[in-house]
């Protein structure tokens, strides 16, 4: 039976990118549909009526939304190159850190990028606290998954390609020499063929986030 896999995303979304990496890691053939979020396709709205967001994976006509849900679905459906370990405790650890990124780290860094004044100061302090926990978790390991990348690496992966963009746009270095283990991880991660061959263009990202930054920080 012919298998049909489609991925609705945008060219830049880190949530879509983690799904791309998972599909590439497992060697799954798929059609990528890059959406314009200001003009969402009828198909996207049909496949994700609840959130109307990307990414959405459609496997043989069945849609799955929310990137972490998609990643678990991919791992359970295609067994080669697993992104979650067998052991339930190790699985729990990966899921905990994936959640930590999405619910704590990423929002705090996003706030540090978008907010002003006292709120920005607080967001930076929170981001640094969060980064310290991540640094601690990585100690003694090459990747979050150990010797090979796993779910947590794919989820934290946005740090490897987007943090430098934020730093370039804001002129503020958030992951500095206080985080040697994290910096080493970012380098190792970016050197993996499936990662470095599947990154949105850096220059285009800088333009996009520069424009966003100006929107959040209008010149007075």
């Amino acid at each position, binding site marked *: 039976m012919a298998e049909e896999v489609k991925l609705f995303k945008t060219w830049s979304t880190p949530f879509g990118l983690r799904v791309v990496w998972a599909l590439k890691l497992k060697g799954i053939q798929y059609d990528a549909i890059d959406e314009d979020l200001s003009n969402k396709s009828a198909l996207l709205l049909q496949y994700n009526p609840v959130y109307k967001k990307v990414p959405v994976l459609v496997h043989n006509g069945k849609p799955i939304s929310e990137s972490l849900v998609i990643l678990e679905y991919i791992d*359970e459906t295609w067994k080669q190159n697993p992104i979650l370990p067998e052991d339930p405790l190790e*699985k*729990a650890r990966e*899921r*905990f850190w994936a959640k930590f990124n999405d619910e704590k780290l990423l929002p705090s860094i996003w706030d540090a990028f978008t907010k002003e004044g006292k709120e920005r100061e607080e967001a930076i302090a929170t981001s640094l606290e969060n980064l310290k926990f991540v640094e601690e978790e990585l100690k003694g390991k090459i990747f979050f998954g150990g010797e090979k990348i796993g779910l947590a690496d794919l989820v934290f992966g946005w740090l490897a390609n987007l943090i430098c963009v934020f730093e370039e746009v804001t002129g503020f270095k958030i992951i500095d020499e206080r985080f040697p283990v994290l910096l080493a991880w970012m380098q190792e991660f970016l050197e993996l063929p499936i990662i470095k061959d599947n990154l949105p263009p850096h220059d285009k990202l800088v333009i996009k986030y520069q424009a966003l930054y100006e929107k959040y920080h209008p010149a007075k």
Partner: protein
Amino acid sequence: MAVEGEVKLLGFWVSPFVFRVEWALKIKGVKYKYIEEDIFNKSTLLQELNPVLKKVPVLVHDGKAIAESFVILEYVDETWKQNPLLPQDPYHRAVARFWAKFAEEKILEGAWNALCSQGEEKQKALQQTIEAMEKIEGELEGKQQFFGGENIGYLDIILGWISYYLPVWEEVGSMQIIDPVKFPAITAWINRFLKHPVIKDTLPPREKMLVYFHQRSKALGSTSHG
């Protein structure tokens, strides 16, 4: 083959997140030791077991700590195979996980925000919560007894707080979210859920809950403005 290792659960008497784990353990017949934690005066034990988030519930199995109720539930389901909570099929598992996340973000957070706010902010939170509830009502239509089918499953446990906490929050917050006319399927599900032998004997005391949430909503409401 029996699963080895002592099971402990660090909890707080009124936390809906802790009850999720208790329901799951009891449904699977897993014996555990419950340790009460005062979350307003956190112990060194909690800080050791969950140094990152310092929150309950924390499950400790054979000396290893697992935090975050969603993560704990999946761990429990994978470790003790009897009375499975998640379906076998990957697509149905994805659907259950999707709705769990949706309900947590839109209904739980929405209802809590409505409880702790006033005026326009409260009305907005209420409206968003009700809209989200409509989607869950749609999900339940035509289902058997529970979201999990004949038996209570993962999504029933995640949403279980709606059956017991939400009516308390409605009373404390002088608001209505579950209108039985608007949500007949959810209303019927609530009654079935609360009658389940495991659930009905594993609930916090309602009178104490009313006092607690009245105090909390006032405390949080007064700090959220200004």
